[in-house]
């Protein structure tokens, strides 16, 4: 059948979100991978939980990964700290963070798609910092290594989105869920035939600093892992201070998961969920959500 208008062709050429992944990003994971400790009794259950997620990625073959993370003092210092920063480069380099994590090969970007997302987010009143050069730290790199450990070259082009979780005040969970909703619509209005996976990285409960260091809250982490699937608005009610009390000073990294969740829209299916504690000082969550077609 002949399509006179060509509409069907155009409709096909729109990016589609296939799913979202929530994952820890702590440096200890990167160090364990560098030392090839996949079978070490401490690490094996943690790494094994990623097998079905990797299998899903192998089947669905995303072409773009939007990676929501927080920089921990590699690209941004306290002289200038953006609340939301979007990478708009053709390539992102990793670099020395100071404490021995091996530097990884560069990650390919998708600058044209980045600018589309930036335009759409700004049109919805999100004020962004745009980055045509941007180092990506372990918050971005460790999840990429975890998800594609054996790839001879990175099989996806990437769009890094940094969220400030270093210098308070931080953006609220409600704001981040909303950001994710707009981000999702922006991705799915990009006129190119891309299959997109959104990564929300960081968390879950952990506290590195102060006399309360080592604080982990397993019941709260499990509550978040459950509720984020179909009732993320329950988690969006918290203040940042609430998240610190419930999940430690680094617990607010949950806001990156909320951006991922917001991007997927209302209808999702949970394919995998795993919680492992402790990994280093952290309650480590893993979640794979498929966007309903």
């Amino acid at each position, binding site marked *: 059948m002949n399509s006179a208008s060509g509409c069907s062709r155009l409709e096909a050429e729109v990016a589609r979100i296939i799913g979202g992944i929530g994952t820890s990003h702590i440096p200890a994971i990167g160090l364990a991978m560098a030392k090839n400790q996949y079978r070490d009794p401490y690490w094996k259950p943690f790494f094994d939980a990623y097998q079905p997620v990797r299998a899903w990625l192998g089947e669905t073959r995303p072409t773009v990964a939007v990676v929501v993370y927080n920089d921990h*003092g590699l690209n941004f210092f306290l002289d200038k700290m953006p609340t939301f920063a979007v990478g708009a480069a053709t390539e992102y380099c990793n670099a020395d963070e100071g404490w021995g994590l091996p530097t990884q090969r560069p990650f390919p970007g998708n600058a044209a798609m980045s600018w589309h997302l930036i335009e759409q987010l700004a049109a919805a009143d999100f004020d962004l910092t745009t980055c045509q050069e941007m180092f990506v730290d372990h918050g971005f790199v460790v999840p990429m290594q975890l998800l594609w450990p054996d790839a001879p070259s990175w099989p996806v082009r990437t769009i890094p989105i940094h969220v400030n979780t270093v210098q308070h005040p931080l953006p609220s969970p409600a704001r981040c869920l909303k950001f994710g909703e707009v981000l999702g619509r922006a991705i799915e209005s990009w006129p190119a035939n891309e299959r997109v996976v959104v990564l929300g990285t960081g968390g879950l409960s952990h506290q590195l600093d102060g*006399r309360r260091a080592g604080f982990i809250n397993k019941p709260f982490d499990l509550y978040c892992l459950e509720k984020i699937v179909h009732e993320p608005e329950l988690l969006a009610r918290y203040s940042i201070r609430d998240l610190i009390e419930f999940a430690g000073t680094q617990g607010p990294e949950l806001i990156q998961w909320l951006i991922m969740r917001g991007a997927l829209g209302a209808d999702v299916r949970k394919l995998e969920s795993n919680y492992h504690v402790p990994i280093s000082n952290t309650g480590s969550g893993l979640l794979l959500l498929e966007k309903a077609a």
Partner: protein
Amino acid sequence: MPQTRKTPTFQPLANSREIWGTTIFDGCAARRGYALNKMCFSFNEAANREAFRQDEDAYCRKYGLDLEQREAVRSRNVLAMIAAGGNIYYLAKLAGIFGLNVQDVGAQQTGVSVDEFRERLLAAGG
């Protein structure tokens, strides 16, 4: 009577009390700790880590650390660094020079041995 399953719920707290043992890195801390954190940020470069190792106090002075901050660095006291405005993400780079990982730092701040600190973390999974 129908049985009710008890699942924990976590209602928003809506309070502003201080959280025990916890410093929120706000504008006040950021101003207090700027010099210290800026020095730590420089440790992303190997040459700067080496320069610090060569002469710690000279390196601290170059970055304008005050007496309290210099003393905190000299004594490797992480709680004192935080009290002087240090942010843990930047302090981690300094701790790396001292050969301390986040569990060593956790043990030091909580006043227990590293083994005891690890035991506490393992207990969180129980």
